């Protein structure tokens, strides 16, 4: 049964601080919430997130987690309760997806403005309409400007580790912002991978008790969330949030250093894959990057100097690390698994802006739209994108709008379904 994970698993022979398990992405983030000793879990079901809250509710009901689990009547209420509970001083965990994230969207900005650090797992799923279940990143990227930190996971291990890191960074007094950990629906949430499950005592050491700032107490009345009707005040508080988010870059690096010491896994804000001698770099995030790496392997075998840069921390945006990785490269292919209708991908302009003022900036930054609604991205599609970028570079030309990756066999399939829909 989903969610039932035996606590008594074989110990890893190499070390005494972890346990090896086969876990889905959903199970891994539930374990992370448990190991983080989350004490308040407001929840609301939505596919493909639901497994997470089923597991957590079961653990709470069995007394295996000392927490309050409450099923709310909507994501808007869920996020409100999550935010006020974090502001009151509880360590809060919650999860949602897609339409749910958008239903509660108003509260994302409020929670961030309350400076209430909590961790929200978004199980990515493309947005209606048309309604679907498979992932892309329009849901999580819609929250881009809210003030939530954003961690984007490729693997089940990262999903677990990022929840722990997210608490550590979010609750730091230099940050005090909530965090989203994004895992792709189905592709990561329901994929079982081998995971090093940390020991509770090590997690406790990495993640000390949450010490809230100005919580709500009888002895010290506070007024929270109140209007600031004088415009300079609004600018002041908003920019403070921005600076706090920028602080999170170094707080993350510090936390990652401690994390590596305790758990022997190292995380930079970005992952460089075969980048050293690469001429062309594919930029991706989240689980489809695994497919991108396979494509890099294949193209390397064909003698093409291709690498991949994966964004782990999307907010705050790790501009410096991205610059370090991409300066001097010939071509950059930004694979956006999202679409800002009427513009193109959301991430590509951020990459371009980061590189613009460098003298050794790449000759071509090719915006690519791929993998919307869970559409697979084949090796041939990656090859095509790289070829287009390299040809533009040789022609000293720029791209003419985003390149949509869409195969002929898919076009034929769509065609046949359109015929059925039109009764033909």
């Amino acid at each position, binding site marked *: 049964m989903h969610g039932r994970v035996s606590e008594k698993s074989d110990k890893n022979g190499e070390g005494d601080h972890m346990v090896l398990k086969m876990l889905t992405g959903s199970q891994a983030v539930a374990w992370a919430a448990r190991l983080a000793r989350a*004490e*308040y879990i*407001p929840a609301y079901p939505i596919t493909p997130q639901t497994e997470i809250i089923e597991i957590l509710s079961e653990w709470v009901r069995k007394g295996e987690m*000392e*927490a*309050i689990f*409450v099923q*709310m*009547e*909507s994501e*808007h*209420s*869920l996020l*409100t*309760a*999550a*935010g*006020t*509970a*974090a*502001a*009151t*001083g*509880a360590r*809060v965990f919650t999860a949602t997806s897609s339409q749910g994230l958008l239903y509660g969207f*108003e*509260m994302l900005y*409020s929670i961030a403005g309350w400076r209430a650090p909590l961790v929200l797992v978004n199980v990515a799923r493309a947005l209606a309409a048309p309604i679907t279940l498979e992932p892309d990143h329009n849901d999580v990227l819609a929250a881009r400007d809210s003030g939530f930190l954003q961690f984007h996971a490729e693997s089940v291990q990262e999903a677990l580790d990022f929840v722990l890191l997210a608490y550590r960074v979010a609750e730091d007094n230099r940050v005090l912002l909530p965090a989203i950990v994004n895992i792709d629906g189905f592709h990561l949430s329901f994929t079982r991978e081998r995971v090093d499950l940390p020991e509770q005592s090590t997690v406790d050491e990495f993640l000390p*008790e949450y010490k809230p700032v100005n919580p*709500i*107490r*009888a*002895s010290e*009345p*506070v*007024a*929270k*969330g*109140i*209007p*600031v*009707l*004088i415009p300079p*005040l609004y600018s002041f508080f908003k920019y403070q949030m921005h600076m706090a988010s920028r602080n999170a870059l170094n707080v993350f690096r510090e936390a990652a250093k401690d994390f590596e010491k305790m758990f022997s896994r190292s995380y930079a804000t970005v992952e460089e894959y075969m980048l050293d001698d690469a001429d062309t770099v594919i930029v991706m995030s989240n689980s489809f990057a695994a497919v991108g790496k396979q494509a890099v392997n294949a193209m390397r075998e064909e003698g093409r100097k291709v690498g991949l840069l994966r964004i782990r921390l999307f907010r705050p945006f790790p501009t410096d690390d991205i610059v370090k990785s991409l300066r001097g490269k010939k071509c950059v292919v930004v694979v956006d698994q999202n679409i800002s209708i009427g513009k193109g991908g959301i991430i590509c302009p951020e990459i371009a802006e980061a590189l613009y003022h460098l003298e050794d900036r790449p000759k071509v930054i090719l915006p690519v739209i791929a993998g919307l609604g869970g559409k697979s991205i084949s090796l041939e599609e990656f090859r095509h994108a790289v070829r287009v970028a390299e040809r533009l570079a040789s022609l000293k030309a720029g791209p003419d709008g985003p390149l949509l990756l869409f195969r002929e066999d898919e076009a034929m399939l769509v065609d046949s379904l359109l015929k059925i829909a039109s009764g033909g």
Partner: protein
Amino acid sequence: MSITKYRTLKDVPKEEFLVAGTPLCAGCGALLVIRLFHKALGGNVVWVNAAGCVTLMATFPYTPLRSSWFYTAMSSAPAGAQGIRDALDILIKKGKLDPAENLKVVVITGDGAASDIGLQSASGAIHRGLDFFYLCVDNEAYGNTGFQASSLSPIGSGTATTKPTHLYPAGNVLPKKDLFEIWRSHRPPYVATISPSHVVDMLRKVEKALSFKGPKLFLALCPCPTGWGIEPSESVQLARLAVETGIWPLKEAVYGEVTHTHIPSKRRPVEDYLKVQRRFAHLFKPIKNEAVIAEIQKQVDEYWSKVER
């Protein structure tokens, strides 16, 4: 209500939790209700607010309250109360918080947030048995945005979105939702209507509610000088007229069992209440709209015929 410390106005507690100096309007019925309600509630309170007039009570860097305040959003103050209540509970249970730091959690919203955009959130919190107070200050429209109709605006009232015209001579044609009954259908421990004109009745109800764990819900009629078109000095008088005409029944329901706490011995005609307010002026000028006034009177009479029988 056999044992109560409130018998006359002299018993109103002297301690103030809402001090002078708020930006709310002169004669605001809600402000008066909050002040009196808080006296009966006592200290150690966190108010959880949804967008509305009273949101402006606390604007940075000031608050007129000696208790805590949390503005959430227009539609989800009850969910905000859930988060605070649950967080306090788990922190106390885990020994991280001294029980002396505990707070009474009180939702305060206007009628629009209570009956329209926030009804789902309130229903959820009541259904879950959340241990909280809900004080709805009902001025029968969206006052803070300029007095547009809410689903608690009464039939025949003129608002910024139900202006009387030759096509709609009655103004608002929709009936006032029965929020008391909507709340009561959830069978919470305590639901009551209150009025700033009947202070002892109000204090006794809060006193009684304090003995229950779970949702304790209060619907207060709050005259609104700017929206109703009355003088600030007339607010309490209007609230009294609403009770004396039978338009605003004072009642409570304990686990769903309804008791009227004040039955007017001789109800005054609703016209006495309507004709002194600008929002109903179109029912009297240029020609008297007998049909609408009679309909309002009929609805009140029907209500009380069931009570008195």
